[in-house]
């Protein structure tokens, strides 16, 4: 068999499918064409984040440190995208059914899938390199060579990250990965915490400590991959091309070598999948439903109708059992967890009911960021693996599917935000020595979450939960805008609280206004959701 031809054919087919998946809505007419496919939103976020970081660092730090920080950002962004959803490009269990019986060498398949993934990684590398390259070249101690050197270093870092993620997924096996997906999501949250800490340090410290740190960073920094590559970029920027060549070429060599190792690991994992050694559904679970209804126990007290109970039950069960859905949702909690952790660790979590000034910023931020996470959490229950099963709901004699959607959203928010609320209120009560103030702060956070829910639900859940097709980038891309709107709404209210100061009466007044406003807001949201679902039904349900 001509392996070159097979590789070309496979890669062509994979890339064509990925592109069609991005244009799915427009191609099928299942919903109005999106102005930008989800992938473009992800790239847009990468551009925006790298631009903000570059502008923050511009003319404040030396060129080599500028490169190190930008490469670190690339690692976080590319790593997050791969861990959350883009690793799926390389791991497609369905391939076994289509290709498993073909005379296709393992290596050819693995190379095609990896190249398929690297096409995305290439786009990510370019998106994260544009602003640092251009702004870096304009630094006092750098020149035009900085731009291409940074691009090369960024490619090396992106390749290394991609290879490590793929290698880890492949080496430990799909079953093991499923079990540790939640752990991976928390690793990501920890990465966000580190990035958050760095960002808030850059923004808050106006005393020149950043400049001092950047001028004399610890020696070990230059021994890390980012440090070594950053130093090379700095040298290239300074015109020392010969000295720059070694770290950059070694970096690229290591990047490509890691990719080759990842290809090997991937072909081993494919062999296991093809031989049926690791069937995706080997787990047998025994769950008994009594009484022929899902509206039993405490669920019955949380829902208003059997239809809402059905939605609640569906989301609760699928989120329990679908590691991918959890992985798509959990990173959204990174920012509120980071704000809380940083507040506690850096003694910046002051009681807003007795304190005035900057010390309460992180206290207020936790609620704001919990609200900002809501759109991502709702997006996690929009898409699923069993699109066809939505017919159970579309053919049910329900006047509206809105209660189903509302029930599912309740389950998702309760599952993801419930534990965080408890942790936040308990931590605040302990920290502030006031259960009352902690409870009030919890109420503030809850009201922001409820308003964000009312704002986001009609826009994100105009379908039976878990019925949208999984499109690469959808859980990270377009939803970011809605997340930003919810965060901005919360920040606006937080600014009012900041201005009002520690007056309990005034703050209680604000809480009362938010609580009263929620009723019409929720009513409007339910009506809008109902209308959106009717519109979808008129277009033919899930198409």
């Amino acid at each position: 068999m001509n392996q070159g031809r097979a590789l070309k054919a496979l890669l062509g087919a994979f890339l064509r499918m990925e592109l069609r998946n991005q244009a799915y809505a427009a191609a099928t007419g299942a919903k109005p064409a999106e102005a930008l496919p989800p992938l473009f939103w992800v790239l847009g976020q990468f551009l925006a984040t790298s631009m903000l970081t570059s502008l923050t660092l511009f003319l404040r730090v030396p060129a080599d440190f500028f490169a190190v920080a930008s490469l670190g950002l690339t690692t976080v962004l590319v790593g997050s995208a791969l861990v959350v959803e883009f690793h799926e490009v390389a791991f497609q269990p369905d391939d076994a059914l289509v290709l498993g019986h073909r005379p296709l060498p393992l290596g050819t398949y693995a190379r095609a899938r990896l190249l398929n993934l690297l096409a995305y990684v290439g786009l990510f590398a370019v998106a994260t390199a544009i602003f640092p390259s251009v702004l870096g070249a304009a630094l006092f101690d750098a020149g035009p060579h900085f731009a291409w050197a940074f691009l090369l270093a960024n490619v090396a870092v992106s390749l290394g990250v991609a290879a490590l993620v793929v290698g880890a997924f492949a080496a430990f096996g799909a079953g093991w990965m499923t079990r540790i997906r939640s752990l991976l999501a928390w690793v990501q949250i920890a990465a966000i915490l580190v990035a958050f800490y760095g960002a808030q340090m850059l923004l808050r410290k106006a005393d020149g400590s950043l400049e001092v740190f950047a001028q004399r960073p610890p020696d070990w920094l230059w021994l890390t991959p980012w440090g070594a590559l950053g130093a090379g970029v700095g040298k290239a920027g300074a015109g020392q091309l010969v000295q720059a060549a070694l770290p950059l070429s070694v970096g690229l060599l290591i990047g490509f070598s890691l990719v080759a190792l990842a290809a090997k690991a991937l072909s081993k994992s494919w062999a296991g999948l093809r031989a049926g050694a690791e069937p995706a559904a080997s787990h047998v679970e025994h769950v008994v439903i009594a009484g022929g209804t899902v509206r039993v126990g405490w669920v019955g007290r949380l829902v208003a109708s059997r239809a809402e109970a059905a939605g609640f039950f569906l989301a609760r069960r699928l989120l329990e059992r679908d590691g991918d859905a959890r992985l798509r949702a959990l990173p959204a909690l990174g920012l509120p967890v980071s704000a809380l952790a940083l507040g506690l660790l850096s003694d910046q979590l002051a009681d807003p009911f007795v304190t005035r000034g900057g010390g309460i910023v992180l206290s207020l931020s936790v609620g704001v960021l919990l609200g900002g996470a809501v759109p991502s959490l709702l997006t996690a229950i929009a898409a699923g693996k069993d699109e066809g099963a939505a017919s159970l709901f579309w053919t049910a004699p329900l006047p509206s599917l809105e209660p189903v959607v509302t029930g599912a959203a309740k389950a998702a928010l309760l599952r993801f935000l419930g534990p965080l609320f408890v942790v936040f209120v308990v931590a605040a009560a302990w920290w502030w020595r006031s259960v009352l103030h902690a409870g009030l702060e919890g109420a503030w956070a809850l009201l922001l979450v409820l308003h964000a829910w009312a704002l986001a639900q009609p826009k994100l859940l105009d379908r039976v939960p878990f019925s949208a097709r999984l499109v690469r980038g959808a859980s990270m891309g377009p939803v970011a805008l809605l997340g930003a709107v919810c965060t901005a709404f919360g920040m606006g209210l937080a600014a009012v609280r900041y201005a009002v100061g520690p007056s309990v009466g005034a703050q209680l007044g604000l809480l009362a206004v938010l609580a009263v406003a929620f009723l019409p807001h929720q009513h409007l949201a339910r009506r809008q959701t109902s209308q959106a679902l009717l519109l979808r039904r008129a277009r033919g349900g899930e198409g």
Partner: protein
Amino acid sequence: MTTPAIDVKDLRHRYGSSEVVRGLSFSIPAGQICGYLGPNGAGKSTTLKALTGLLTPTSGSAAIMGHDLRTATLAAQRCFGFVPDGGGLYSLLTPREHLALVADLHDVPAGLAAERTEQLLRRFEAAAFADRRVDTLSKGQRQKVALITAFLHAPQVLFLDEPLNGLDVTAARTLKELLVEHAKGGGTVLFSSHILDVVERICDRAIILHQGQVVADAPTTELVARSKDKTLESIFHQLVTTDRVAGLEGFSA
């Protein structure tokens, strides 16, 4: 005059510029099992989707037990059970969880739902895997679950798209018995299948589609009698292996 269980009038549907259902009209009285046949792409699944409210047809009308699907959708949807091609199940739920979900969506009283669930699980010999996740079940076991969900709320009309897919001999026999019982009790079945000998044996009537149009609509016995070698397969082949859509004289609706 008795209201037909299924009444379809000049139903048309387009996907983009391609018209896949072209002016279908037929009505099926209560108590009849009707085979719905046609080659791939004839428009069978599209019609079933339109008759179950999963798709809004471009034009025409359809009514289930006298309830128009456009103007009285809910009343119509209360009357039928549906098994889509592929089953339409959540792979991460268990059969019993699916049945509880369907009971809630159709508002079947909890006690009655539990009773019917156990009856149907026993009937299809599915109790042994009722608490296992669907993604751990075989194709035939999944199909049994899909069938049970369609029967659970005791609908008057059943729409079955390839219901025999993956079923073993015993399960297929159980299904046939259930369909006959359902029809004897006044229920109606629209049965889409490519397994023509089964259709020949259990259906009172067959509607054959070709290129989105009805090319034959008659009692199965009459269709068989008119064929060259006295089989449904023979007349089916005769009707659908031509580009020209033309019904047999006396059989077109």
